[in-house]
């Protein structure tokens, strides 16, 4: 495992104990019984769909279950017996080696080449390309980690469209990946707009990490909070279809006929909705890029 991941640091063995939860009485009983046996917490699934913002395509819920983890120590045989007696053939035991949980997730993040740019995990200081073409990110709750095709497509579109002295707006900045790339590509001023306070905190950290704080202005809010008196040369909006459709007419208040707008976060199924609103409101598509079911549109306002 590369990048300083130490998997042996707190090695311990746990028993993952899963009770079938398709009977809701049994699920409630398992919940109470696990706590009685000293579980510090539970993992569970009730089969109810979670209502998630930003999810264009929600996921089907899994089979219901209730699961607890117990250490494989001298207390286990007694717990094991109690669980077997109580739940008989509806309980499944699985032995599991604990990893260094604080770091094990990092193996999922690798440097991502985007054209001649790189998106690097924050804990990897050495980029294979010049620092001026590298965006370092500490991925957290903020969206935009470079593993998503729309992030990569947008980054490529952004860096290829920037002239020196460009004024750029990154609408829905998330981790700040696109704002950072715009600043490094030579934009004179970047305005990063992000309504989620958690993302804003991550974004500010990432600006600092990439030493572009002085050229990126963070607007914690939405488009309405951005000063419309100075038009932007380039606007990138990596959002979701609903917001793009709703905001496009308002976006026109921030551009000139020479401006370029990059619209992204559109799933192929919903592309017609976006095209319809562009046709109705002065939007001419100059380029359309598809990747893994996602679409990026480059649009000229007319």
């Amino acid at each position, binding site marked *: 495992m590369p990048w300083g991941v130490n998997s042996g640091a707190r090695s311990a063995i746990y028993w993952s104990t899963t009770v079938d939860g398709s009977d809701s009485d049994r699920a409630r009983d398992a919940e109470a019984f696990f706590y009685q046996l000293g579980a510090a917490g*539970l993992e569970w699934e009730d089969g109810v769909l979670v209502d998630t913002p930003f999810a264009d395509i929600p996921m089907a819920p899994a089979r219901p279950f209730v699961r607890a983890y117990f250490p494989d120590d001298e207390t286990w045989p007694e717990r094991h017996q109690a669980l077997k007696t109580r739940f008989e053939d509806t309980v499944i035991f699985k032995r599991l080696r604990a990893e260094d*949980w604080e770091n094990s997730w990092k193996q999922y993040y690798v440097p991502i080449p985007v054209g001649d740019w790189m998106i690097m995990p924050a804990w990897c200081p050495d980029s294979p390309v010049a620092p001026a073409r590298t965006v370092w990110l500490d991925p957290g709750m903020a969206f935009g980690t470079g593993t998503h095709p729309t992030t990569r497509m947008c980054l490529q579109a952004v860096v290829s469209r920037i002239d020196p002295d460009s004024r750029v707006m990154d609408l829905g900045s998330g981790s700040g990946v696109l704002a950072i790339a715009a600043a490094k590509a030579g934009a004179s001023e970047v305005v990063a707009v992000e309504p989620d306070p958690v993302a804003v905190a991550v974004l500010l950290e990432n600006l600092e990490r990439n030493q572009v704080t002085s050229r990126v202005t963070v607007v914690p809010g939405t488009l309405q909070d951005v000063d419309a008196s100075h038009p932007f040369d380039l606007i990138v909006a990596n959002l979701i279809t609903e917001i793009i459709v709703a905001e496009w007419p308002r976006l026109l208040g921030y551009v000139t006929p020479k401006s370029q707008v990059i619209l992204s976060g559109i799933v192929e199924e919903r592309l017609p909705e976006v095209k319809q609103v562009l046709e109705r409101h002065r939007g001419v598509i100059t380029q359309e890029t598809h990747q893994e079911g996602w679409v990026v549109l480059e649009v000229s306002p007319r």
Partner: protein
Amino acid sequence: MPKKVTGVIKLQIPAGKATPAPPVGPALGQHGVNIMAFVKDYNERTASQVGLIIPVEITVFEDRSFTFVTKTPPTAVLIKKAIGLETASPTPNTKKVGTLPRDKVREIAELKMPDLNATTLEAAMKMIEGTARSMGVEIAE
């Protein structure tokens, strides 16, 4: 940023005191979620409820970013807290360990209402009573 959901993780963990140990580590780690970012934010958001176990629903997106919502504490936890009970009965049918007054049942039902699959308060109260009985806790009129 557009989102395809690749995983939903539901946990019950101590408010303000989550750690990367199980269940958090194994549940989140397999989805490639930044565990410390979750732990930090969860603890911050639940700091005022220390002492309770809070259910949390974490949605993981295909770029491994995530979001979460916290719910009301589990019924069993609230029952224990309401009557100062340490542990539930190992044999709820024969050994009773406490008594939950009806007004406490109502109180817990009202608190749990938004997260229960119940349309009326009476139905919610029935669910609370069911949990109490499975813990060896009797209901007082």
